[in-house]
C-alpha cells in the first residue's frame, strides 16, 4: 500500500506550533534588534510557511521518492539523455570535506588539490574532443552552446567580419536555435532530408559570407553518424564559418572518433550524460566546452593553468584568457558535477572509455534489431548509441500512438523512451539503452514492447494503470495553470 497521507502537500501537513529544527541561543551580547537594523527594512510579519516536525519532513520526501522512476530503480532508455548507471563512489568522493566544503573564494594556494583535479579534467576533455582548449565554466549543455557562440562572435568581431547567421538541421535540439537567438544570431534551419542526414547540397545553398556557425549533433539525434561530416565541415570552413558540435551524443564515439578530427571547431560536453554525473531530476549538469587553439584566447574565465617552477614545483593558478568573452556564471563552474566526471574518467581510462561507446552501440543495435518488426526505424541500416523508431504503422493500423506505447511501458516497469522527438520522424520513439544495461534487460524490454503491440488499443489509450497517477489533463492545466499552492486549493 502506498502511504497517501505523507505525500499530501507540505502545506497540508503543516500544523501550527510544530518545529523541526532547534538553533543555538545567541552567544553575543544582546542588543535591541532596532539598533542593528532599522525597522523599516524588516518584515512586519514572518512569511507564511509550513510548520512540520523532522519526522514529517523525512516521511514526506521518502514517500515522494517512491513515486519516481530512476536509473537506480528502472531501465530508463530515454533517447538523447544517456541515462546510464551513476556510480555510488562518485557521491561519496564528491562529498569529501576537502571538496564539498571548499569556498569558491578560497585562495589558490589553499585550493591546489581542487585546481589540480580541474586542470586534469580540462586536459582529459581536450584529449577526448581532439580540441585542446577547454573551459569548464558552462553550467549545462545549453550554456555551453551559448558560450561557444559568443566565442565565435568575438572571434569574428576581432577579424572584422560581420557574420550574422547560425545554421542547424531540423533535427537539432531546441537549445541550438534558442542559444543562437540569445547570442544575437539569425537562425536558419535546414529542411529534413529523407536519409536523416544533413544534405551537403542543401547546406551549401545557405553558406555565404554571413555564415557564422553551423551547429550539428554528431551522431545526430536520429542516432546516425553524419558520414559526410568532414566534407560538410570543409564547406563551412571554405565559407569562412565555424563548425559547432553539439556533444549530447558523445557516448557513441568516445575514443573512436573525435569532434576535432572530423572538422569541429567547438563543442560542448554534457558531463551529466556522457560522464555520468547524475541527472538529479532535471539538473544539475555541467556543459564544459572544448575549442581549437585559435579560439582559446576567447574562452570565458577563469580557466586553470599549470605552472612548473625551475625546481620542478607545480602550482595551479586561475587565469582569464587574454581576449576572454567574460564570465558566463558566478564562481568557477558546476564543480560538483565536474568532479563526478573526473572520477569516472579516472576509473575508466582510455580502454574503459572506448568500451563504453562500443557497448552503447552494441546495445542500441541489438535492441533496434529486436524491435524492427513492430517498431521499424525509418532512417539508416544501423545506428550508433540510440535509434529513433516509428510507431506510425501501429497508429495507422490500430490507432495506437507513440504516447500510448510510452505510457504502457511504465506498467511493465520500464521508463518510456523519448517520444515525438526529433520531429522529423512520425510517431517517434527515441530509444537509448546505454552501455550499462544487460542483454536480459534489453530482452525483457523487447518482450514488453511486443506484448504491447498485441494489446487492446482501447486499453492502451488509458494506460498506465499501475502508476500513482495516469494521463494528467494537460489541456485543462494549460488553460488554467495552477503554479503554487494556496489555501483555497483545499476548499
Amino acid at each position, binding site marked *: 500500500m502506498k502511504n497517501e497521507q505523507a505525500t499530501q502537500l507540505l502545506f497540508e501537513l503543516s500544523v501550527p506550533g510544530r518545529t523541526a529544527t532547534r538553533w543555538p541561543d545567541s552567544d553575543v551580547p544582546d542588543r535591541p534588534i532596532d539598533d542593528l537594523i532599522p525597522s523599516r527594512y524588516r518584515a512586519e510579519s514572518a512569511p507564511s510557511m509550513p510548520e512540520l516536525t523532522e519526522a514529517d519532513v523525512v516521511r514526506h520526501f521518502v514517500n515522494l521518492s517512491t513515486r519516481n522512476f530512476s536509473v537506480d530503480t528502472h531501465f530508463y532508455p530515454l533517447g538523447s539523455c544517456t541515462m546510464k548507471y551513476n556510480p555510488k563512489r562518485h557521491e561519496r568522493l564528491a562529498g569529501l570535506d576537502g571538496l564539498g566544503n571548499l569556498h569558491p573564494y578560497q585562495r589558490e594556494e589553499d585550493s591546489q588539490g581542487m585546481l589540480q583535479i580541474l586542470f586534469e579534467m580540462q586536459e582529459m576533455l581536450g584529449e577526448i574532443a581532439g580540441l585542446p582548449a577547454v573551459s569548464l565554466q558552462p553550467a549545462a549543455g545549453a550554456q555551453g552552446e551559448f558560450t561557444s557562440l559568443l566565442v565565435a562572435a568575438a572571434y569574428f568581431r576581432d577579424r572584422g567580419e560581420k557574420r550574422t547567421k547560425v545554421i542547424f538541421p531540423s533535427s537539432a535540439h531546441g537549445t541550438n536555435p534558442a542559444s543562437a537567438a540569445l547570442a544575437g544570431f539569425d537562425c536558419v534551419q535546414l529542411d529534413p532530408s529523407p536519409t536523416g542526414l544533413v544534405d551537403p547540397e542543401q547546406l551549401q545553398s545557405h553558406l555565404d559570407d554571413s555564415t557564422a556557425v553551423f551547429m550539428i549533433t554528431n551522431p545526430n539525434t536520429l542516432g546516425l553518424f553524419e558520414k559526410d561530416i568532414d566534407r560538410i565541415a570543409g564547406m563551412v570552413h571554405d565559407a569562412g564559418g565555424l563548425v559547432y558540435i553539439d556533444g549530447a551524443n558523445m557516448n557513441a564515439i568516445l575514443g573512436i572518433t573525435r569532434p576535432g578530427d572530423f572538422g569541429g571547431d567547438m563543442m560542448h560536453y554534457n558531463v551529466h550524460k556522457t560522464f555520468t554525473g547524475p541527472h538529479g531530476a532535471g539538473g544539475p549538469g555541467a556543459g564544459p566546452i572544448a575549442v581549437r587553439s585559435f579560439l582559446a584566447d576567447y574562452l570565458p574565465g577563469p580557466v586553470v593553468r599549470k605552472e612548473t617552477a625551475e625546481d620542478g614545483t607545480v602550482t595551479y593558478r586561475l587565469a582569464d584568457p587574454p581576449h576572454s568573452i567574460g564570465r558566463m556564471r558566478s564562481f568557477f563552474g558546476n564543480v560538483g558535477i565536474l568532479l563526478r566526471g573526473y572520477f569516472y574518467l579516472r576509473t575508466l581510462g582510455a580502454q574503459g572509455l572506448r568500451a563504453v561507446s562500443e557497448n552503447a552501440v552494441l546495445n542500441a543495435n541489438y535492441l533496434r534489431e529486436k524491435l524492427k518488426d513492430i517498431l521499424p526505424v525509418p532512417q539508416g541500416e544501423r545506428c550508433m548509441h540510440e535509434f529513433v523508431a516509428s510507431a506510425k504503422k501501429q497508429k495507422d493500423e490500430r490507432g495506437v500512438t507513440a504516447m500510448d506505447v510510452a505510457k504502457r511501458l511504465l506498467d511493465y516497469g520500464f521508463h518510456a523512451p523519448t517520444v*515525438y522527438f526529433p520531429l522529423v520522424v512520425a510517431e517517434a520513439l527515441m530509444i537509448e539503452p546505454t552501455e550499462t544495461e544487460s542483454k536480459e534487460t534489453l530482452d525483457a524490454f523487447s518482450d514488453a514492447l511486443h506484448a504491447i503491440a498485441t494489446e487492446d488499443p482501447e486499453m492502451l489509450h488509458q494506460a498506465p494503470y499501475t502508476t500513482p497517477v495516469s494521463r494528467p489533463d*494537460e*489541456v485543462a492545466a*494549460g*488553460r488554467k495553470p495552477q503554479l503554487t499552492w494556496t489555501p483555497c486549493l483545499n476548499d
Partner: protein
Amino acid sequence: MDPSQLKYARTHEWVHLDGDVATIGISKFAVEELTDLVYIELPSAGDQVSKGASFGEVESVKAVSDLYSPVAGEVVEANNALADDLAALSDDPYGKGWVVRIRVSNPSDLDDLMDAAAYEEYCNSQG
C-alpha cells in the same frame, strides 16, 4: 458570419470586410488541426500590423502557432473574451470565435485572398 462568403489566407485566417474594418478569425479547418488550444495571445487596440506579419499566437499544450494578418492596418479591437473562453474558437470559429478587427489601410490587400471554394480545395490539398 457565413463561411461561404468569407475570404481566406493560405495561413488559414478568414477575413470579413465591413466598410474599412476587417474582422479576422481562424478557419474551422485550422482550429481542428491545432486541437486542444490552451492560450491565445492577442494584440492591443492601436497596434499597427503589416500584411503577412504575425499579430498574435495560439498555443496548444505542446505547440505554438503564429497568427498572420492577411491585411495591413491598425487594430481596432481584439476579442479579449477568448482569453477566458478558448472554447469559442473551436465551437464557433466564424462567430463568437472571431479574433481581431483591423482598420484596413489598403483594401486591395484582400485581392489575393482565396474565396471559400478555392480555400476548400487548398485545404484538401494540404490534408
